[in-house]
């Protein structure tokens, strides 16, 4: 049997900086540096051990200020694709230890408007008041029309994830709950079908990971976590074109199920299926996105996602616990990308078995995701405790 492409790669370090609605006295660089210091502390590594940097706009500055050069450098966006890029660089011998980091602070200041990265400038949407919630609402409404998915089912997702954050001491919205689905439905409407509490928050923060070779991982203090699979689906640029469920080319593969093909490739890479997943660290920009992902990834049939998430299946102790730190609804949403890396960080934490709250007992396989159909992309990673 051919060796798994990521057989020799391990995730050995994870860290979040402090997270808050507003981090007084920080900008994106200083908060990113805080996360980098913490991830180095998590691993016991020093800057001189790093020979690859994958940090979006901070790749250059970090390489320079850590004096890690000559280093490999990723040019991918700092989310799941950058982790896969880092893993590929290690697997192909371009470098041995990669720092992944991103942070955001001081960028969202005009609070009367939605966050700047959510407001597209494309000429065909700019005059119609579109922003992220409205984009994802157009996807959700279509699904509700086709399959009868209900506001109550959406609210059940939001209450579940917000309760995970309510319990988490480091979540921005720690202690804000607990929430029932009725609480979600009672919050003000933002973009039908999304009430305020169906939506992600905005906050500030940073995070970081370190990947290295399986061999080096044996000498480091943390239980290594392995990449069992990963792939990315994209249907075009976010927030510029009508986010239609049925957007597709001649292949018939549609934007409504973006992530399905990435998931199939990831499962094939790891010789796994949905039934093998112990914890679902799914990206949660809006409640409906969780329902959509369970259908897209093959956990349930098309149109059955609304029923699938009911009856405690996605809550603590359920068959498929989701977004166990509170995700973008309650843990943090530090800009355009930090919260995407944080899905993987939480997956690693679950597999290490070190979660302070909502630890899934004996979790062996975590599925992590980024993106969504309203944004026309979904990226997927499968993590495991065993070398693939």
């Amino acid at each position, binding site marked *: 049997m051919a060796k798994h492409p990521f057989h020799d790669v391990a995730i050995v370090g994870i860290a979040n900086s402090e997270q808050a609605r507003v981090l007084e006295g920080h900008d994106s660089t200083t908060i990113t540096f805080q996360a980098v210091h913490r991830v180095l502390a998590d691993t016991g590594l020093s800057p001189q051990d790093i020979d690859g940097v994958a940090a979006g706009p901070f790749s250059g500055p970090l390489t320079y200020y850590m004096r890690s050069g000559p280093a490999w450098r990723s040019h991918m966006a700092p989310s799941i694709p950058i982790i896969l890029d880092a893993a590929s660089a290690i697997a192909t011998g371009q470098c041995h230890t990669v720092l992944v980091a991103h942070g955001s602070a001081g960028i969202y200041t005009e609070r009367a408007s939605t966050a700047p990265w959510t407001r597209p400038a494309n000429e065909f949407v700019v005059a119609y008041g579109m922003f992220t919630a409205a984009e994802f609402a157009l996807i959700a409404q279509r699904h509700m029309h086709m399959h009868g998915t209900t506001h109550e089912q959406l609210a059940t997702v939001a209450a579940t994830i917000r309760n995970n954050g309510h319990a988490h001491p480091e979540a921005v919205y720690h202690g804000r709950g607990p929430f029932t689905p009725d609480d979600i439905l009672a919050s003000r409407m933002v973009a*039908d079908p999304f009430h305020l509490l169906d939506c992600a928050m905005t906050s500030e923060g940073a995070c970081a990971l370190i990947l290295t070779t399986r061999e080096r991982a044996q000498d480091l203090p943390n239980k290594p976590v392995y990449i069992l699979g990963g792939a990315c689906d994209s249907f075009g640029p976010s927030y510029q074109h009508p986010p239609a469920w049925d957007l597709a080319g001649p292949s018939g593969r549609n934007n409504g199920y973006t992530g399905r093909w990435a998931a199939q490739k990831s499962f094939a890479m790891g010789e796994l299926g949905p039934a093998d997943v112990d914890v679902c660290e799914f990206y949660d920009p809006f409640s409906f996105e969780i329902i959509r992902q369970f259908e897209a990834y093959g956990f349930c049939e098309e149109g059955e996602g609304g029923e699938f998430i009911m009856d405690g299946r996605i809550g603590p102790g359920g068959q498929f616990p989701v977004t166990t730190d509170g995700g973008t609804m309650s843990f943090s949403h530090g800009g355009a990308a930090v919260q995407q890396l944080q899905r993987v960080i939480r997956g690693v934490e679950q597999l290490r078995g070190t979660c302070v709250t909502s630890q899934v007992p004996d979790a062996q396989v975590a599925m992590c995701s980024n993106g969504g159909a309203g944004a026309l992309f979904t990226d997927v990673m499968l993590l495991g405790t065993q070398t693939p």
Partner: protein
Amino acid sequence: MSEILQPQSPGIPLPVPTIYSQPYWDGCQVGELRYQRCQDCGAITMDPAPACSACFSENLDWEVSTGLGEVYSWTTVWRPQTPAFTVPYVAVIVTLDEGFWLLANLINCPVDAVYVGMRVKATFVELSEEITLPYFEPVNRETLVGMAADIINLPPDFDIEQADLLD
């Protein structure tokens, strides 16, 4: 009472046409909803682009849509993107009868009356000297405004054609 959706006022961010899209915006100024059709494979490309989205041919020509279509999906927005926008507004994706999608806002319709499959037609609103925006309104606007009239208890002899409710 049920509010009647209105176009946005000047002051909202407006499109900046490109060399590909200028004919589309020129069409809006004369009340035409224009789209590109590939002269090689016959497929429609929308948004305007330098090449066909079915076969990538550059041999595209402009045609004029009937402006008729139906609502494919919708969302009523209550939190504006920026303070320049007046809420509520309804964003719709419309499937034009020719078979392409367009994203726009719905107007001349009670705020709670929109549904997937609603028949709509394009209508044009001048927002600046350079930009006239396409909006959509219900084809059966009289019926819908009648519904709204019931809700706000207009007298039985209320003449919808004389009302300035819409324009």
